């Protein structure tokens, strides 16, 4: 069985994840719309997930030769699973907060959150 990483290379996945993460950071800093900021956070989480899956694919073959009962390649995939759970919970609560904020201020501009001080 041919490992797909032999043909693509882990470096390409690292670069893709780095650029995707930077786009997420950029979106958080650039936009004022709270919903777009949330979407950028999702992009960042997805970059990390992609890197975890790529590394699990990379390391599983190496560890299996030494310790056949090791679950080290599966662990990363389960981390991705838990990250998805946390992302779902985070988005639901965050969107509820945005809806509440919109009800009070009739805007989703994050600069209006300054009013939380008073």
């Amino acid at each position, binding site marked *: 069985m041919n490992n797909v990483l032999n043909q693509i290379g882990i470096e390409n996945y690292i*670069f*893709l994840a780095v650029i*995707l993460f930077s786009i997420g950071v950029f979106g958080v800093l650039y936009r004022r719309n709270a919903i777009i900021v949330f979407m950028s956070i999702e992009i960042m989480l997805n970059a990390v*997930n992609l890197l975890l899956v790529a590394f699990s694919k990379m390391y599983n073959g*190496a560890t299996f030769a030494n310790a056949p009962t090791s679950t080290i390649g599966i662990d990363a995939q389960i981390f991705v699973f838990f990250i998805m759970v946390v992302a*779902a919970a985070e988005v639901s609560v965050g969107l509820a907060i945005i*809806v509440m904020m919109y009800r009070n201020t009739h805007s989703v501009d994050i600069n209006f959150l300054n009013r939380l001080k008073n």
Partner: protein
Amino acid sequence: MTPFLIIFCVLAAITLSTAFLTVFSRNPIHSAIYLVICFFSIAGHYLLLNSQFLAVVHIIVYSGAIMILFLFTIMLMNLNKENEVHKPRVTRLAAVILFCSTCLILIAIFVNSKPIMGEYDATGEDFQSINKLGNVLLNEYMVPFEFASILLLVAMIGTVLLSKKEKIEK
């Protein structure tokens, strides 16, 4: 150029361009649609890495649940107008500079680091099917699994409490 590399390049181009369009489009509905395409291409990456379970879960959770939630919120608040005020020019310039420097520094680090393994072993051992993942998830990760369910329950209660209309007591 092997076929896998070509598929990877196409998927990566779709992912990056739609992620950029998500950040840059003026209309929030368009950003949400672009983000759905971005998530589908990431699921394509998972399939390329042969983790079928994660690909399916990713499509169901992200494109199915989270993005529907986003779209409903956008439509509920009637936000599909394009009248957003931009941030001050200094802040935007700082954002662009920070984006470029983050990319440059991280990529430079990874380019200059030594490769850990020259060849990637392929044992042919199945380690990412639902069978294996389920075994590990319900044996070694039993407690975190239960905590995840508690987290989802708490998030659900919190969402309902937050979005409930407050009674005016004045």
